[in-house]
């Protein structure tokens, strides 16, 4: 029996990976040391720049007194609902736009116009419409996250291999079967990319919306700390946002890789 051999990653590739990891992390470490030194040697006013050590202390403090958890839950709710709504509306709408040409012709320009509008500029309107509570923020997240999804899924539909459709038709497949067996699997990598972009935009949306107005959430916490000159706490808040953003992206990337195993460049067995 013949077997297909998949070669393991070569040693050279492995070594290159290690080198680039070392280079990347050493720049970060160097930056942190320089920052700490700047503070310790009092080269710059400590009020302006804080220091890694002080940020860590502030971080521990807000974790211990429950401030972080309180604001995190609010932000997570706003982001979660908005993101979910963006998927629920954006996924089918994007697919339909790509699938039905007439729909694309009708809604395409309108969506392009909306997409070009900076959503955060609409924040005062959202506050007028929905108040200073959670709803206005959910709407901002929804409006920020939905367009990457719509655009990506619409593009996905245009990348469907016509030969596959031809084959499916030859086997007597109906439109719904073609959609399920070809269009949906084709859209999957685009959905993942869309979700990653949407997560980034949504996170940005929730933080800016909270900075803009309101009395809870991580964005508010950062804004409040800033206006009361608690630089350490500002950095502590920013660090939390960064960690959330990175973990979301890494998770979605992992999920994407899982569904992407069939691609020639990511096949691992």
């Amino acid at each position, binding site marked *: 029996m013949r077997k297909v051999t998949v070669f393991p990653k070569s040693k050279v590739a492995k070594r290159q990976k290690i080198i680039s990891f070392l280079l990347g992390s050493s720049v970060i470490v160097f930056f942190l040391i320089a920052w700490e030194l700047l503070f310790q040697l009092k080269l710059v006013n400590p009020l302006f720049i804080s220091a890694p050590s002080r940020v860590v202390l502030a971080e521990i403090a807000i974790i211990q007194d429950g401030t972080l958890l309180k604001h995190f839950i609010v932000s997570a709710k706003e982001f979660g609902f908005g993101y979910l709504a963006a998927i629920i509306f954006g996924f089918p709408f994007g697919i339909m736009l790509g699938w039905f040409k007439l729909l694309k012709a009708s809604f395409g320009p309108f969506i392009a116009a909306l997409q070009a509008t900076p959503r955060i500029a609409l924040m005062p309107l959202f506050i007028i419409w929905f108040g200073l509570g959670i709803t206005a923020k959910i709407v901002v997240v929804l409006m920020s996250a939905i367009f990457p999804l719509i655009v990506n899924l619409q593009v996905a539909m245009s990348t469907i291999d016509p*030969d596959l459709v031809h084959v*499916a038709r*030859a086997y007597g497949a109906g439109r719904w079967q073609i959609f399920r067996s070809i269009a949906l699997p084709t859209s999957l990598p685009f959905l993942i990319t869309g979700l990653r972009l949407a997560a980034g935009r949504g996170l940005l949306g929730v933080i800016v919306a909270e900075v803009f107005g309101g009395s809870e959430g991580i964005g508010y916490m950062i804004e409040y700390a800033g206006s009361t000159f608690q630089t350490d706490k500002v950095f502590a808040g920013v660090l939390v946002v960064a960690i959330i953003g990175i973990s979301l992206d890494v998770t979605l990337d992992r999920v994407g890789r899982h569904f992407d195993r069939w691609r*020639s460049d990511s096949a691992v067995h």
Partner: protein
Amino acid sequence: MKNGMTVEAPEASTLQRFVQSGVATPGNGELGNVAKSHIEVQKTVQYPDNRPVKLSIKNLVVGYLDNQSGQTTVAVDKVSLDVREGEFVSIVGLSGCGKSTFLNAIAGLVKHQYGEIRVNDRLVNGPGKDRAVVFQKASLLPWRKVGRNITYGLELSGMKPAEAREKASYFVNLIRLNGFEHHYPHQLSGGMQQRVNLARALACDPEVLLLDEPFAALDAITRELMQNELLELCEKVGKTVVMVTHQIDEALLLSDRVIIFSSRPANILDDIRVPFPHPRKGHIKDSEEFRSLMSQVWKIIEGNANIGGGI
């Protein structure tokens, strides 16, 4: 039809030609006549064959609208063809002569304007389970492993994956794909991919198997190997097959009959019975008889190309 294309009914009196063996006729002397007369003459070649007719095509006309020029082109012009059960029929002709259009019409992927197609005496209009097509490109679903690519056709006809797998397993063995079920298509060579394509078609157990230049995209060596495998396979399963190819040797090796199409609009120039008995082996290509048959087919195509005003 909308654009004013008129299709006349074919003449009632079609000249019937009886050919005993393709080796003897048509003689070289009448090649010119064959080519010249093909415009008026419909040839139906018959020879003793008592098997029931599986695929029957009568006066098939296929035209299509050219989107750029807005003109209607007739690709297939009043072609009649009967294929009997278990028969392997090849269609050869110049590229662009309409042979692929003809095959697509049988598959139901292209609408015909006139005439009829019957499988087991049942009128055919559109794709159906009774026919399966193997295209030049393997066109496997890249996100499905080999096993589920083979069952794709069955799944489309409403069969559950587990049941389909069982039904397909016979062909997986036959095409020697066992052990590859869990590979993705991109991990396979072009030849292997085309075997999966073939297995996918056979798994549906169609009444008629349609092959559209199945090996044209493969390299020369793989092509030869695949020809031998297909030969062996067809002798085993005894399927009714219609294959379009531009390789004359491929057509002669595999087929019981070779149909030669004229340049566009296509109709049948000649219908040659391939006399070699089954089981055949690839080395019959080296025989004197095979070569003379090849040159005979080639001369008919060449003669038509010259008369038809070029290639």
